[in-house]
């Protein structure tokens, strides 16, 4: 079994050290690089081409949002998982727009961190429960929360979005619905177009804000799939 190759970008050495030790307990995960600031993170990512980059937001020289945005060009196959000390939901949209695949607080226990690395590597998105909670509150209060998409989703599309929101990968959704993976992908593209969004995470958030499914249905970090 090939290992998930991880880059750790954080300006606090103790934190990097602790995280490396925790991930060391999981044989399917290997830390292949470390960086103490944003620019170094991009440089190392260019060299090692990691599968997952664990990125702090507050870093000297270049912040985590910028690092995430530029990673797409430097190391296209790298999925970035934000790991931050702050529970500011304000960052979420900027991060999603920059292409982040997950947003976790640094306080998550070791096992959840490892699971989040795996989930992100699988193509899923992961949000910390505390942040999801804040986000939903904000979406409910925001003026365009109630706005319906110009073209409503079909029953099938809604079903697929619900399954995606519960944390299933495309393959798992395909298995559950009896469709081919290819068909699931086509459905997702339609959903994105109708909602005017660019990522699975955004589609899920919009569904949440319109009350199509409850928060409890969302895959949270730490839940077992």
């Amino acid at each position: 079994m090939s290992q998930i190759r991880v880059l750790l970008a954080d300006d606090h050495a103790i934190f990097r050290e602790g995280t490396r030790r925790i991930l060391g307990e999981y044989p399917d995960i290997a830390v292949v690089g470390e960086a103490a600031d944003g620019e170094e993170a991009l440089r190392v990512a260019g060299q090692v081409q990691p599968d997952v980059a664990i990125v702090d937001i507050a870093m000297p020289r270049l912040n985590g949002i910028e690092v995430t945005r530029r990673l797409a060009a430097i190391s296209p196959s790298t999925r970035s998982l934000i790991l931050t000390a702050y529970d500011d939901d304000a960052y979420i949209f900027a991060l999603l727009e920059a292409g982040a695949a997950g947003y976790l607080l640094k306080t998550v226990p070791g096992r959840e961190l490892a699971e989040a690395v795996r989930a992100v590597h699988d193509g899923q998105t992961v949000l910390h429960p505390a942040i999801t909670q804040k986000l939903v509150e904000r979406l409910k209060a925001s003026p365009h929360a109630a706005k319906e998409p110009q073209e409503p989703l079909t029953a099938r599309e809604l079903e697929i979005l619900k399954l995606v929101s519960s944390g299933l990968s495309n393959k798992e959704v395909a298995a559950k619905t009896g469709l081919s993976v290819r068909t699931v992908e086509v459905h997702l593209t339609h959903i994105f177009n109708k909602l005017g969004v660019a990522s699975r995470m955004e589609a899920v958030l919009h569904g949440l804000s319109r009350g199509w499914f409850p928060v409890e249905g969302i895959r949270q970090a730490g839940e077992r799939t």
Partner: protein
Amino acid sequence: MGSVAGISVPPFRALLHALSRLPARARDRRFWFIQAMVLGVAALHTYTEAGGYQEPFGSFHHIPVTLFLIPVAYASLHFRLEGGILTGLSATILTTPNILLWHTTAFSFEGELTQLAVVVAVGSLLSWRVEREVRQRFKAEEASARLQVSEEKYQNLFEAAGDAILVFGAAGELLAANAAAGRLTGYTLKGLTAMRADALLQASGWEAVQRSVTADLPKPIHLSLVTNRGSQVAVEATCALVHSQEGPLLQAVLRDVTEQQRQQQNLQSYASLVMRAQEEEQRRIARELHDVPVQSMVLICRDLATLLQSSDSLPDPVRRGLAGVRERAEETLGLLRRFSRELRPSVLDDLGFGPAIQALTEELSRRLGFRVHLEMSGTSRRLAPDTELGLFRIVQEALRNVEKHAGATQTKVAVYFKEGRAGVAVADNGQGFRAPARLGDLTAEGKLGLVGMEERARLLSGRLEVQSAPGKGTQISVEVPA
């Protein structure tokens, strides 16, 4: 000298008044002279009539009564109305026995009466005219005396005034200047009065002076004065239009405000330095908080969570104890985060003003238990760092006041971005207050919030507007170039 007031009372009372002053007149030689003349004429009259000398005198026997005109006219000239009337009266009384005794025929009776009437009429008319003349002269003298007093007073004020006073003619020629004006400008008074307004105040200053005196509500204006050494002095001028015989004059009272302005500027740059230092300090503390306590709390929380999750073998009481410790550690971390965010919100630096305000209103909504509405208009964009920070701090402070003082049930924050400008407004429906005309006065009470907001607005070249009244809620707004 007679009483001026006497003329204005009714005739009968005037007579009584005149009679009451006879004893006083007795000290005047001219009074006795008049009495002597009257008695002399009366005696001559009686002598001619009683002695039966009318015939030899022929028509000249009428002369004695006519002679009464002399004392009557003399009394009128010296004692004015009362003299004329009283002398006419005494002549009439002294003549009455003559008329009754010797003018028995209708013709001579009427002739004698007519003569007397002429004497009394001439006396009254003459004395009345004299009285009027004297009165007018007296008034004129009094007025000119008063004028002299006030001119002296003005001259004293003008000379001794601590403020410089300049008097200009309508065409801008300098007509007068006081000693203080000499000190202020460095010119001699002679040199000054040879100058013209536009040389001393510059053309724009002279125009401002002219404009200010024609305004409905003349207010002090700020001018800069050119001294004899060519340097400029900042002055506050209070201008007035003075009407004189030579036409309208412009009087300008100037006060040197250079020192005042310098102090004001020093104070403002001091305030902005303090504010900058404070921001710097807050940023440093926030950074320190982030680097040390927040990071170690994060690690403690993670270790506790990992421990709780991975060790199934822990006895239940230990597990419960650890779970409690973890909860408290998370709470402490939350407090540290909030503390650091208030000191310096990283969202502001990373994402900008719009998202930072949004985060602020959300956090406040959670604390207040009702929604703080945020209205954004125009396209949100990044502004200069100082502008973002300044506007953010103004909103932060305004919301702090809402939380602390307003007791509101609704609060709205409006943020707008326009071409070249950006603005914010924070409005609540709480109890409101009466804002002092100068917010600076609040510092005396140790209240620094509104003053700080005003100062920040000023540093961004904007102006803070505070609209509030008891029971009417409060609205704070500012617009700045951005």
